[in-house]
């Protein structure tokens, strides 16, 4: 039967994908905080501490234009519902936690010279998001749904539509005319088929929605990114396969020079958006022999934000408990580092855009926890001034 075969086939997918999709288990919520190496708390910035940093780590703490977590923290995400695991490891949902989300593509606050871009992007995003929601929501009585099946036409010319509203398994049946069912099917198929150059990135599915996207972007002096070209070193079988050197060459060609000063040992995935924007998942070789998985994203200031970008945010369980510090990278770029026991995020405001890097403990199969020295090493593996 197809069902069993599908179950078996999906059950045996590549280990790498299973490890990649594993969930971050908030250790403080599962009562197992002793399981991981806590990073040393260090709320800066005192001059004395900054001096110590210069000596010990070769990085410089700075106070000017200091935004810390604020630079990426989405204010609308504070106190969101979070999923955590109880003492038995069973997932639970809690509302009103001190959690928040860090954007990996859009600055939420920035020095004066970049604020105009934030304002433009915010306004463009709000306008686009309202339109996006309108075109992606099915009308009543179909919405809301989590499962929807359209059956064959019956002899009386009507069609049964089976709707599952929630996870309870209960099903609701609505009878509509064959014409209405065809309209619904067409709408669903259209929504599932990306249109033109921006379909994958912005959920555009016809000429009208593409025109609207371009109209909004142009109004704010922004440009949508095109459907990204993705590459991977993960399998030689796929047509996106490239060697590390090939990927670096492609990445560097769309930027102002080399983006990495030390080549990653392996790229899980790289997406090039054709507008100098890029996204990568790469294993970075540390001098101690570890290869932590780092995610990085460079977003040009002129790039129109997409609704789906929010789903790529980084969750922080306790926004008040993070460490924040500044560092000056090898190429002179000021980088902000935000860390808690589960992850490290680093970002830089650049003339051409925003770069955000992230390491998450749960995404690293050997659960190796980065030290401060490791973080500094990773921060210095990138040449920020060549981005864009």
């Amino acid at each position, binding site marked *: 039967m197809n069902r069993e075969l599908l179950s078996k086939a999906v059950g045996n997918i590549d280990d790498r994908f299973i490890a990649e999709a594993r969930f971050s288990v908030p250790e403080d919520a599962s009562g197992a905080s002793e*399981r991981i190496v806590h990073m040393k708390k260090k709320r800066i910035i005192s001059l004395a501490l900054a001096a110590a940093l210069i000596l010990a780590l070769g990085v410089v703490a700075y106070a000017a234009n200091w935004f810390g977590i604020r630079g990426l923290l989405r204010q609308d995400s504070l106190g969101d519902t979070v999923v955590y695991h109880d003492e038995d490891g069973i997932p639970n949902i809690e509302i009103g936690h001190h959690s928040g989300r860090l954007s990996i593509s859009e600055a939420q606050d920035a020095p004066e010279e970049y604020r105009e871009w934030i304002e433009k992007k915010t306004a463009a995003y709000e306008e686009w998001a309202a339109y996006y929601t309108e075109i992606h929501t099915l009308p009543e009585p179909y919405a809301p749904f989590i499962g929807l099946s359209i059956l064959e036409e019956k002899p009386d010319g009507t069609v049964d539509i089976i709707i599952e509203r929630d996870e309870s398994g209960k099903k609701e049946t609505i009878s509509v005319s064959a014409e209405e069912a065809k309209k619904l099917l067409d709408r669903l198929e259209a929504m599932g088929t990306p249109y033109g150059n921006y379909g994958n990135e912005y959920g555009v599915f016809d000429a009208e929605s593409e025109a609207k996207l371009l109209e909004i972007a142009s109004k704010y002096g922004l440009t949508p990114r095109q459907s990204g070209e993705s590459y*991977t070193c993960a399998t030689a079988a796929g047509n996106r396969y490239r060697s590390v050197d090939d990927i670096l060459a492609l990445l560097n060609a769309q930027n102002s020079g080399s983006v990495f000063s030390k080549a990653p040992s392996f790229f899980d*995935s790289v997406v090039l958006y054709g507008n100098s924007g890029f996204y990568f998942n790469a294993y970075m070789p540390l001098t101690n022999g570890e290869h932590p998985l780092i995610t990085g994203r460079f977003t040009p200031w002129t790039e129109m934000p997409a609704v789906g970008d929010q789903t790529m945010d980084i969750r922080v369980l306790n926004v008040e408990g993070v460490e924040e510090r500044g560092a000056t990278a090898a190429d002179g770029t000021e980088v902000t580092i935000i860390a808690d026991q589960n992850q490290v995020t680093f970002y830089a405001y650049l003339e051409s855009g925003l770069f955000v890097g992230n390491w998450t403990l749960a995404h690293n199969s050997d659960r190796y926890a980065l030290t401060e020295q490791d973080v500094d090493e990773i921060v210095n593996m990138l040449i920020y001034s060549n981005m864009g």
Partner: protein
Amino acid sequence: MEDSKIIALFYERSEQAISELDRKYGAAVKKTASNILKNKQDVEECTSDTYLAVWDTVPPKKPIPLISYVCKIARNLAVNRVHAITAAKRNATYDLALDELEECIPSGFDLETELEARELTVMINRFLADLPAEDRKLFVRRYWYSCSVAELAAITHATPNQISVRLFRIREKLRRALMKEGLLV
């Protein structure tokens, strides 16, 4: 403790291997099982069976990364248990996810006569490798980990409707990829 050290403990037949495995991956194993099995006792039994299966197979195996290996065992055991205990009634999340995936195959098309599960796995792996990382994670969390739409929505800060539409799009891509592979016409 590093995976290699835990595996070394299994090779030494040290009972500490189980406790280290539980310490490191217990939550992940329980989550994988609890997405498919809703009964707490079933989850506990499935977790214990998973550890026993690892004990029985390591050695001779040296599975790296260990996380994927133990979660795979947990998932297979949980699926088998679902089939055994819910022959008459559906498990909402697991069955719903499988229903969705089945939509990629036209009704009346018998996959089993066309190919082996491992061939389909190769195709799905190829499809996943080409997907953007976030879509790939969403697919694996829904169809491998059997996470509910509500949970995925909470995790990704999206509405359940947005998640459903994203999953619909990914399934459409899968259907097209299977067509491209010549599997479906």
